[in-house]
């Protein structure tokens, strides 16, 4: 079996004094699309941030393409080929749209496809129109597109996408869904955090449910019907 793109064992993470992740185990094969589900505050965002080394203290093991990253600093982790799209989008107010787009440098390990700027603008025509305006003047949806677009041109092959459909109009969500399918075809490994199950379900190869900082359920897409009841219980409000 090939080296997993991402292999997490017994991951603990803290924010200051609050212990948020209590031993997450997670393995993602290259080219897979995995969706993390869970209630608000379950720890999904924290899982992604922990992968990037952005939480407080971390313990356990996180291997990216077989390389241990728990002791690395954030930029080294990113350079292994991870593109991160944060929940709060992280569009820089003091940068124009174009500067935002060009901010992440091309990674040394360019495993994934490197999209050219024109390809990106073709995929998100809105951004092309507004390339000169300050990043935070964009609408929420446009900002979301920008946040995703930004990491596509770097050559990262593992994408961590945190609630990218959040707060977007259905058309755009559909566009994003098309985009993810396209990325999947191109061989990207994708880990998505989603509230919007309708959006995530048809895209994912694998589902993982997190509750109170632990993985409580993990199954391939094919087994979805079998886990329906359990899912209802875990995710219903």
């Amino acid at each position, binding site marked *: 079996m090939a080296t997993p793109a991402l292999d997490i064992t017994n991951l603990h993470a803290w924010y200051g004094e609050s212990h948020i992740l209590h031993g997450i185990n997670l393995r993602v094969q290259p080219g897979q699309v995995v969706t993390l589900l869970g209630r608000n505050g379950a720890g999904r965002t924290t899982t992604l941030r922990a992968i990037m080394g952005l939480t407080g203290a971390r313990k356990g093991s996180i291997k990216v393409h077989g390389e241990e990253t728990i002791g690395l600093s954030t930029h080294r982790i*990113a350079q292994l080929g991870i593109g991160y799209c944060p929940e709060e989008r*992280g569009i*820089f107010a003091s940068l124009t749209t174009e500067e935002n787009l060009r901010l992440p440098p091309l990674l040394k390990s360019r495993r994934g496809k490197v999209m050219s700027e024109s390809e990106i603008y073709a995929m998100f025509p809105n951004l092309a129109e507004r390339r000169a305006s300050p990043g935070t003047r964009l609408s929420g949806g446009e900002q979301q597109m920008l946040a995703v677009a930004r990491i596509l041109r770097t050559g990262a092959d593992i994408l961590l996408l945190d609630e990218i459909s959040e707060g977007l109009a259905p058309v755009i969500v559909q566009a994003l869904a098309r985009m993810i399918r396209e990325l999947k075809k191109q061989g990207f490994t994708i880990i998505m955090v989603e509230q919007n199950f309708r959006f995530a379900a048809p895209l994912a190869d694998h589902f993982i449910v997190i509750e109170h900082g632990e993985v409580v359920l993990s199954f391939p897409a094919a087994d979805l019907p079998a886990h329906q009841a359990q899912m209802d219980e875990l995710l219903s409000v």
Partner: protein
Amino acid sequence: MTELFGIPLPALLGQLLLGLVNGSFYAMLSLGLAVIFGMLNIINFAHGALYMMGAFFAWMGLEYLGLNYWVMLGLAPIAVGLVGIVIERTMLQWLYKLDHLYGLLLTFGITLVIEGVFRSFYGVSGQPYQVPEQLTGATNLGFMILPNYRAWVVVASLIVCFAVWALIEKTSLGAKLRAGTENPKLVQAFGINVPRMVTLTYAGGVALAAFAGVLAAPILQVSALMGSNLIIVVFAVVVIGGMGSILGSILTGLGLGIVEGLTKVFYPEASNTVVFVVMAIVLLVRPAGLFGKEK
């Protein structure tokens, strides 16, 4: 002759121009402080000492290596930048997680050490440094005789200030810097080595101070203590400007130089307190400073 407040207009213009010369120094120094503050969140008390170091390096280059002003104008900032890298790597980097005050105290300590070292080697009465040959002499502007060197100081520092402004506001490197001040963590998550960027920013900021030092060497006393009084005035400039923006610090620096210049004409005794008075007034009206962002 036209007069304004009893001063002939041409004389007044002359004084304004001289104010601009001083303003250029303020602008370069407060710009360096602002750049450093933006990335490191540290008020660099050592800025004055590094400015002095720049001037001294210019003198040492000439004295020991026979390198002229123009060479040292390039080399001294690089050398001081290297000193900055050492300071940041060995000391400052341990302070980022602590209260800002420790940064202030540490750089204060660094100031004393740097000044102490230069004092113990070179004494205090200063070293001679001549205006470079190409710039000796003066030009009659009609309303005043402006030494060529002063004109050069204004031009050089305006070019440098606006080059730095352009670098930060208009280039991709600048974009990284700006992004880094907004959200360093995320920038790092894009694979950018933010710690290194921070180090280089500090080096760049102090190199600016050194550049100002070299510019000052021919017109001021090159001595160990030349930076220690200046830095406090520059602090006041920074409080007035508010560290809000790059352009803001440049404009505040220039503006205060001019204000000071005018005071030298109308009430010379107060010329080194006027900046503090302006500071008090600005604080009353706009606590965040002229260009500062409200918290």
